[in-house]
């Protein structure tokens, strides 16, 4: 009989500790959302490198919230410590109202510790190091005017900031939402971790979702704002860029940006360090590590821990809907401003610039540049904006957009923090 009682007690305890008893309906909804995101990452291949770990982290934290739990300290009397089976000599003591208490510490969950890389702003600059080691700034150096398009595409960020304020978001929250318009995942995570870490989950999901949807979001805006004639413009071949110019570029950029806007220094500094590794040609092994092993390791940690911030109670709020809507507006505005400035450059150069390259000013490297190439080629199959003329021309504003969004991030942090 006693055996049956014990067995029943064990089963009841197991049920109490299990997710079936402790999880709320929000957790179950989030688990379903994580399944959808995993489907999109695996089946549709929407930004799988980040969406997959984000979705998995999201699922895990909603099944077992303790994985993201903070470390804690409980004050216990000596009797309680002994009753719990602990050794009192392993703990420090606190005397309170004449009674001695033992500080019994409990470690945090696995993701709590991994998340410190996001919380302290370490992972996004490391991702930028890898991006820098993979990026060829040659097209931008050959045609520095591309920087204008990289800057124009950031206007959407600041316009969306006004929209977010009007919708009732606090300034720091509005800044984190607006940066989605920069279409740069690490930058959005960096700014959000500095300004409003509680919104990290929805902002990261929105940012990476829109980056994955670039081929769907951008072409209608590009076609709406340009004429057939403009889209058919064939641009001239870019001049070759010497190795010395490529080596000097990261040094010049980082010196100027870090002096003028120190808050952008962590992102731009690491981006340019990675690029200097690549272009100098003397530290090939480090450059390879930065763009492969280091980048992959940091991507795993960044993805799962950002996903783990999306617990049901934090994610399923009206705010998330606002973030998703405003993020889309920011993204569309960035694309539109880039194309409109492309049109101004087209007019100023008497038709030498194809305005389609303006949309590549929203970072999303290299997808946004590929879309410029694709839309341009639809009008004129002989137009190679990327491979010869358009792809290389579009890569200029595209990489300028990375620098531009980091500068915009620096502005937001310095004003709002």
């Amino acid at each position, binding site marked *: 009989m006693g055996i049956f009682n014990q067995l029943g007690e064990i089963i009841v305890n197991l049920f109490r500790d299990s997710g079936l008893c402790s999880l709320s309906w929000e957790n179950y909804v989030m688990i379903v959302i994580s399944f959808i995101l995993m489907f999109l990452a695996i089946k549709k291949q929407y930004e799988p490198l980040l969406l997959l770990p984000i979705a998995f982290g999201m699922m895990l934290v909603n099944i077992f919230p303790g994985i993201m739990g903070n470390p804690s300290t409980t004050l216990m009397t000596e009797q309680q410590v002994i009753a719990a089976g602990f050794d009192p000599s392993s703990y420090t003591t606190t005397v309170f109202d004449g009674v001695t208490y033992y500080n019994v510490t409990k470690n945090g969950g696995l993701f709590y510790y991994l998340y410190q890389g996001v919380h302290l702003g370490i992972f996004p600059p490391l991702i930028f190091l890898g991006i820098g080691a993979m990026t060829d700034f040659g097209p*931008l*150096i050959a045609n*520095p*005017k591309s*920087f*204008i398009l*990289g*800057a124009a595409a*950031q*206007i959407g*960020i*600041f*316009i969306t*900031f*006004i929209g977010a*304020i*009007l919708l009732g978001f*606090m*300034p720091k929250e*509005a*800044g984190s939402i607006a940066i989605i318009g920069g279409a740069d995942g690490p930058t959005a995570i960096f700014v959000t971790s500095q300004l409003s870490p509680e919104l990290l989950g929805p902002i990261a999901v929105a940012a990476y979702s829109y980056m994955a949807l670039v081929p769907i979001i951008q072409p209608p805006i590009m076609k709406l704002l340009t004429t057939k004639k403009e889209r058919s413009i064939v641009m001239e071949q870019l001049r070759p*860029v*010497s190795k*010395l*110019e490529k080596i*000097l*570029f990261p040094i*010049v*950029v980082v010196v*100027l*940006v870090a002096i*003028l*806007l120190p808050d952008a220094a962590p992102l731009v500094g690491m981006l340019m360090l990675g690029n200097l590794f690549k272009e100098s040609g003397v*530290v090939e*092994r*480090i450059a390879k590590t930065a763009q492969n092993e280091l980048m992959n390791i940091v991507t795993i940690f960044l993805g799962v821990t950002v996903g783990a911030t999306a617990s049901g109670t934090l994610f399923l709020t009206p705010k998330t809907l606002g973030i998703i809507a405003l993020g889309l507006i920011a993204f569309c505005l960035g694309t539109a401003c880039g194309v409109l400035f492309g049109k101004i450059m087209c007019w100023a150069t008497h038709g030498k610039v194809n305005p389609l390259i303006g949309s590549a000013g929203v970072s999303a490297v290299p997808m946004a540049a590929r879309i410029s190439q694709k839309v341009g080629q639809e009008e004129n199959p002989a137009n190679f904006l990327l491979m010869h003329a358009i792809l290389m021309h579009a890569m200029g504003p595209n990489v*300028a957009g990375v*620098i*531009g969004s980091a*500068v*915009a991030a620096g*502005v*937001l942090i310095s*004003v*709002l923090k």
Partner: protein
Amino acid sequence: MENIELALTLLIAGFVIVFVVLILLIAIITLYGKIIQSAQNAVSNKREKKLEENKEKQTVKSIVREDIEEDDGAIPEEIIAVIAAAVDAVYGNKPHKIKNIRRSRSVRSSWGNAGIAENTKPF
């Protein structure tokens, strides 16, 4: 109201700062691009001039079979051709002449040497 004022200030400040920083970058990159290009053009012009002068004085001598010292085991003509091509690739248009080709006395193979150099290269 206060937040809207902040939003408008940020719009203008953000717009101005991002454009100013990137326009400064355009100016600096254009400037140093021109300086480097003109410096490189000057160097290549000088080189071409020197080359023309040298051409007048002496013609690039082809490799003469008799000039090459042979070991007991003669070096095959194909190997000589490859070495000559490699030397030519390095010196380019500069006048050059291969006087001597000797077998390496190294115990280790070239592949072995390359592997050791790669693995012992400092960071």
